[in-house]
């Protein structure tokens, strides 16, 4: 009986909504908002030259601005997720877009570096944090069969927009200096509000259901509600913790080439332009990798988690090979490995988020993504200083890249400890106090055929 019910549920769900129509509009909104968040963050380097000159501060002091912005974005991700759970994704994203724009507009009036930390760093970072996770979760919920492709397309915007923004920002700075340019950027960031308006508000009757009627004091009830919104209970579930750990390990090594590849290439004897070209080439294959891996994953020949493990392991291997390839002094080898590394690192980003609903279920995805972002980013902060330290100790980058490459491989091994890793089909995603499939797609149909009824009624997953 349960089987019949599930089938009819799945049929009605597929007919109902996701994977088309408004989902593509939301994908466009995600494309634009991601480019205005991360594409913008990556192109802020142009302003830093101006800041160093105007405020007469060191480059290191100025670079704290972007570090603060990025840290704020990641730190406030769970907050954004919780607010979406509590209220309305549309309101949260619109508020986030407004804050991001406001931060940049206020920054245009800055008279000292501290003002920039506060405005461009904290306020805009808070805005970005309120935008990114909710929009990603919204789009992920709108797609099931083509989820990874959608994510791949959306994240390719980061690379593409940093191509476009660099000359644009340069032009704005030349015409209006940094004050005017920041003002205009603030205006551009306000477009995120329009992107947020595209999210159709959903009635969340889940909210009252989550809160058990408490006879205890309202303080405890409040705390419980907050922890529900933040999905803190996920931190006690083994699959989620395992996955988060794996992604964090990946993050430790992931950014090292971006920071150190140019320096390493110079040390290996290549010219400035050759080194910069390797980075640009890696960036181009990164964009390609995101889209291709998204498309390929949605062909559903393999489980997402297996593909993710493959790309992660390959990325780790190629990071390790980077210094080895330049040992022989061959520029071609370095470029080839760089291209391959770029492709793999782009490929895995499309999948990293798409796996989350498989582990925690679609309705907890919002909070799960927020927490994941927070935890993985703090791990990412370790990677670059560690590799810098290794370089200082050993004198060249061989050790740093080797160690950095080993972290994604460790991440892959950690992923292998996920429950049901070695089965050929996806396990049913965990249900929270309900029966029926949450995660749609070809996998669910395979489940109908392969799994026993008892699995479906098994609450809480593994």
């Amino acid at each position, binding site marked *: 009986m349960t089987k019949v019910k599930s089938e009819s549920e799945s049929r*009605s769900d597929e007919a*109902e909504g996701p994977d088309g129509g408004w989902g593509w509009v939301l994908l466009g909104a995600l494309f634009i908002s991601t480019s205005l968040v991360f594409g913008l963050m990556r192109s802020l380097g142009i302003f830093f030259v101006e800041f160093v*000159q105007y405020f007469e501060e060191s480059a290191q002091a100025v670079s704290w601005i972007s570090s603060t912005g990025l840290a704020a974005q990641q730190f406030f991700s769970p907050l954004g997720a919780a607010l979406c759970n509590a209220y309305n994704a549309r309101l949260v994203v619109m508020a986030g877009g407004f804050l991001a724009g406001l931060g940049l507009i206020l920054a245009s009036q800055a008279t000292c570096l501290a003002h920039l930390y506060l405005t461009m760093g904290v306020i805009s970072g808070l805005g970005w944090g309120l935008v990114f996770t909710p929009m990603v979760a*919204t789009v992920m919920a709108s797609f099931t069969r083509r989820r990874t492709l959608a994510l791949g397309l959306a994240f390719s915007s980061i690379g593409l927009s940093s191509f476009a923004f660099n000359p644009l920002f340069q032009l704005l700075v030349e015409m209006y200096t940094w004050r005017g340019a920041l*003002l205009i950027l603030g205006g551009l960031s306000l477009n995120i509000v*329009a992107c947020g308006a595209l999210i159709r508000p959903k009635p969340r009757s889940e909210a009252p259901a989550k809160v058990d009627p408490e006879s205890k004091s309202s303080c405890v009830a409040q705390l419980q509600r907050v922890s529900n919104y933040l999905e803190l209970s996920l931190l006690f579930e083994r699959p989620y913790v395992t996955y988060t750990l794996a992604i964090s390990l990946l993050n430790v090594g992931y950014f090292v080439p971006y920071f150190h590849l140019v320096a390493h290439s110079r040390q290996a004897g290549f010219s400035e332009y050759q080194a910069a070209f390797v980075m640009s080439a890696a960036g181009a294959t990164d964009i390609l990798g995101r889209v291709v891996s998204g498309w390929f994953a949605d062909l559903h020949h393999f489980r997402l988690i297996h593909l993710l493990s493959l790309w992660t392991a390959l990325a780790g291997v190629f990071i390790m090979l980077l210094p080895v390839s330049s040992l022989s002094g061959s520029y071609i080898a370095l470029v080839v490995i760089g291209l391959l590394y770029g492709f793999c690192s782009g490929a895995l980003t499309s999948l990293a988020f798409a796996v989350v609903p498989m582990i925690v279920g679609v309705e907890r995805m919002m909070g799960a993504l927020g927490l994941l972002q927070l935890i993985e980013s703090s791990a990412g902060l370790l990677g670059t200083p560690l590799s810098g330290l290794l370089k200082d100790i050993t004198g060249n980058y061989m050790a740093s890249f080797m160690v950095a490459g080993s972290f994604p491989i460790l991440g892959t091994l950690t992923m292998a400890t996920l429950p049901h890793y070695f089965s050929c089909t996806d396990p049913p995603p965990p249900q*929270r106090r309900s029966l*029926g499939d949450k995660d749609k797609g070809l996998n669910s149909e395979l489940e109908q055929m392969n799994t026993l009824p008892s699995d479906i009624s098994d609450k809480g997953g593994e």
Partner: protein
Amino acid sequence: MSASWKQLLSQVLLLLVSCRHVNTKTPSPTAPALAPLPTNVSSVVLKGKSHTENIQLLNPVNLTLVCIWTGHQNTAPNITGHWRKDGEEIQSSRRSVQVDSQQYNMTRVFSIDKEENLGNYSCVFGDEAKIDFILAAPQFDEDRDKPIISYVGDSVGLTCKMANPDPNTWTWYKENGTAKELISAEPQRYEIKNTNNHTKLLVHNLTEADSGVFFCGAVFAIHTTMRPVELKVITFMEPLKPFISILVEVVVLVAAILLFERCQSKKKVPAGDGTTADQKNMLPQGDDNASEGSSSMRQRKV
């Protein structure tokens, strides 16, 4: 003084073009009866038709220019050569040059003690060969052709750098019509910060009248090399215009999206309720609380 003379000497040595540089007779200073100027020699051997030599001078000097031309197949026994300055023939410099072991040799001493004496000196062998010597004070590297922009009421710093050699001092001028006005430090207005190889002019409390071309001058004993720096002062209205237009665009977009959704939902509302009800009916649940929540969750986007 001796340091810069040594510097000049080493520069001249570097200027020698051919391996077979030929040093002619050591000239005696032919300066008039003022303080004796240091002497220097620049010698060029030409094998082709023409050549240009750049000579950088910091201080007044008696410069001997030596031109040696190896001629071509039909070397006539003598040829008429003359000297030119900036394209115009120098009076009574025309003389007959004899062949000397397959070479023509022209030598002349020039007293370079004033700015006017800098320029383009050429030795011309008949109509056939020419060597140019361009005598100049040290020049700046490429000009920055883009103007520096700043806002009314803000402060701006205009910089000039000269890597080598270091000028004796720096001066700043503002272009006023065709004349250049010297800028001196004024409190709350102009501030000049100099180091050996670069200078910075800070202008405070900018007004639109401050727009224009400024010149930084690198002062050498022989000449002051100038470089233009353009300053443009704009009001905050300038970037405000594109900003307002973007703001308007965002407001229009948001309004349009919300209106569109309102229109659409008005059509959809009756159908929507029906499907929701169907979903709920299909799920008999063990846990009552979760059922309705989860079913509506499932069909909705988060």
